[in-house]
């Protein structure tokens, strides 16, 4: 039997040149290499971009939340808040938080697509590929960060509408948005490694993101809070994205010292005023930790 099979394949090999006019293209899959891993990261990243660009509805719907917070809440509450803002527009004040929420929702949806990928089988195609799982996870996180960054950029360019002129602050704030987007995607991917049902995943993400937003100081100054809220605020990672963004933006505004003191007091740990660089480092560190856990989880999965 074995010999028959052998002969058949040998004949097939010879016959191939005649049957298919142009020579059959023979491919050899190379050994695993760094450049191979880079190609894998790049293509997973590209897939995110292609899918995002196809999904116009998602681009629009994920802008709804930031617009609500900025224009509806910001405008509606501005009369109530006028007394306490020392002449600063409330929309200007909540803008840093809106910049964050804009990237957070998009990053979360990017990570959620992993749950779909599992359900629709595509995850299998990636998991059996001869590349490191870390490359797949990295590509996914870079992809999520990129599309979220794009959403963030749209909201960034609305700045003049809330009384903030364009300036050199834009690239600085954008860098923080990217770091936050990456961290949130990594968090989502980490969760998606374990949670296989979309409803559960979405419920969990909502349960995490909204409290993070309300505790972060996106809607109120972080000094002089009641003790319990102050503790929760300092524990909330989003605090360390909102605060430096507000600091960078306020530094470019001409407002009274009183307004600056009361609206942008900065985060302090046991009386120590945390510098913006350290705050961004907190975000970056958290992102790295969650990325590592996500990689570990996916490497372990069969």
């Amino acid at each position: 039997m074995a010999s028959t099979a052998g002969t058949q394949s040998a004949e097939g090999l010879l016959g191939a040149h005649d049957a298919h006019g142009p020579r059959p293209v023979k491919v050899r899959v190379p050994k695993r290499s760094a450049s191979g891993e880079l190609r894998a990261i790049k293509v997973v990243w590209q897939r995110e971009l292609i899918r995002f660009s196809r999904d116009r509805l998602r681009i629009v719907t994920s802008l709804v939340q930031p617009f609500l917070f900025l224009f509806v809440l910001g405008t509606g509450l501005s009369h109530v808040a006028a007394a306490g803002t020392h002449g600063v527009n409330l929309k200007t004040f909540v803008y840093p938080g809106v910049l964050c929420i804009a990237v957070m929702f998009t990053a979360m949806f990017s990570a959620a697509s992993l749950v779909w990928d599992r359900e629709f089988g595509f995850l299998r195609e990636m998991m059996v590929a001869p590349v490191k799982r870390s490359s797949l996870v990295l590509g996914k996180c870079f992809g999520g960060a990129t599309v979220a960054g794009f959403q963030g950029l749209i909201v960034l360019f609305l700045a003049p509408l809330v009384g903030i002129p364009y300036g050199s602050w834009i690239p600085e704030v954008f860098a923080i948005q990217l770091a936050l987007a990456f961290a949130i995607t990594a968090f989502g991917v980490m969760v998606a490694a374990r949670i296989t049902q979309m409803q559960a995943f979405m419920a969990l993400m909502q349960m995490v993101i909204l409290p993070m937003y309300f505790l972060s100081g996106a809607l109120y100054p972080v000094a002089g809070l009641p003790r319990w809220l102050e503790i929760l605020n300092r524990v909330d990672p989003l605090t360390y994205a909102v605060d430096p963004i507000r600091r960078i933006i306020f530094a470019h505004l001409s407002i009274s010292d009183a307004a600056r003191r009361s609206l942008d007091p900065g985060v302090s740990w046991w009386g120590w005023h945390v510098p913006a660089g350290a705050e961004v480092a907190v975000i970056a560190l958290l992102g790295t930790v969650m990325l590592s856990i996500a990689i570990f989880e996916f490497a372990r999965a069969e």
Partner: protein
Amino acid sequence: MFDPAPAVTVNDLVKSYGEVEAVRGIDFEVQRGETFGFLGPNGAGKSTTINMLCTLVRPSGGEALVAGHDVVSERDEVRRNIGLVFQDTTLDGYLTAEQNLRLHAELYGVPRKAVAPRMQQVMEMVGLWERRGSLVNTFSGGMKRRLEIARGLLHSPRVLFLDEPTVGLDPQTRSSIWRYIRELKASEDITIFLTTHYMDEAEYCDRIAIMDQGKIIVLDTPEALKASVGHDRVRIETDDEPATISELRERFNVDATIAEGAVIFGVPEGEHFVPRLFAELDQPIRAVNVSRPSLDDVFMSYTGTTIRDAETDNSDQRRKAAQMMRR
């Protein structure tokens, strides 16, 4: 150039999920260039075996080599050398056919210069080159399966695994899928390993392993298997099956069983037996059918049940196994 090693070598391979033993110690070899089929009812352990060979499921015991590499310790080497077509689609419906293949080429590190010509070649092979720019979501089930076969071949694997490649497809699409598979043998130096529970499809294989309840029951060429049955199959319909069976035993010394609502038995030279049957059987016969042994009969003679009846029996067991896996 010529690699004498078998394409697949399996020794005492076991997979259990808790108490349920899905695969219970199987051994076989697949030669290079062969089309090798795993035949058996759903729940027989075919998919579990194929998943172990594809490095997707870790064996509980035994060893398996694919293209000369161990599926546990040399997982990447195995992956580089195999192509996979699963039962369920693993395409990204939001990408075009071409984008799906390009993504695969990048993941497998297909040399950049070879990507475009190879993509065209495999897509032409399955007749989808004209549709390369369409979103996969707009494809029919048959087109998706063809695209998956093209993708599985893109990196010129040494072994192509097809898990139930035609399940859920209409007969016309099934036959076209088989045409591609046969053409493949002519144009590529490839070993094909497939599972199926369609008897007629197993006939296309060079060799078949019949699997039931986690074990390989018999392994040979389709011709040899059919010859081993050694008699024709007679199927009669009567009003009282148990009475017919006992009468057959007493008068003709023939062992018959009931399967799919009829009395079935095997006798040498069935055409000559039927006239005797009509003359001597007391039970009125409503219908009669004589056939040359098929793989159905092979399955029946080795397992004592037809493949369809076996599936009904197995479904309970399968539910149990599925529950274990989910845990």
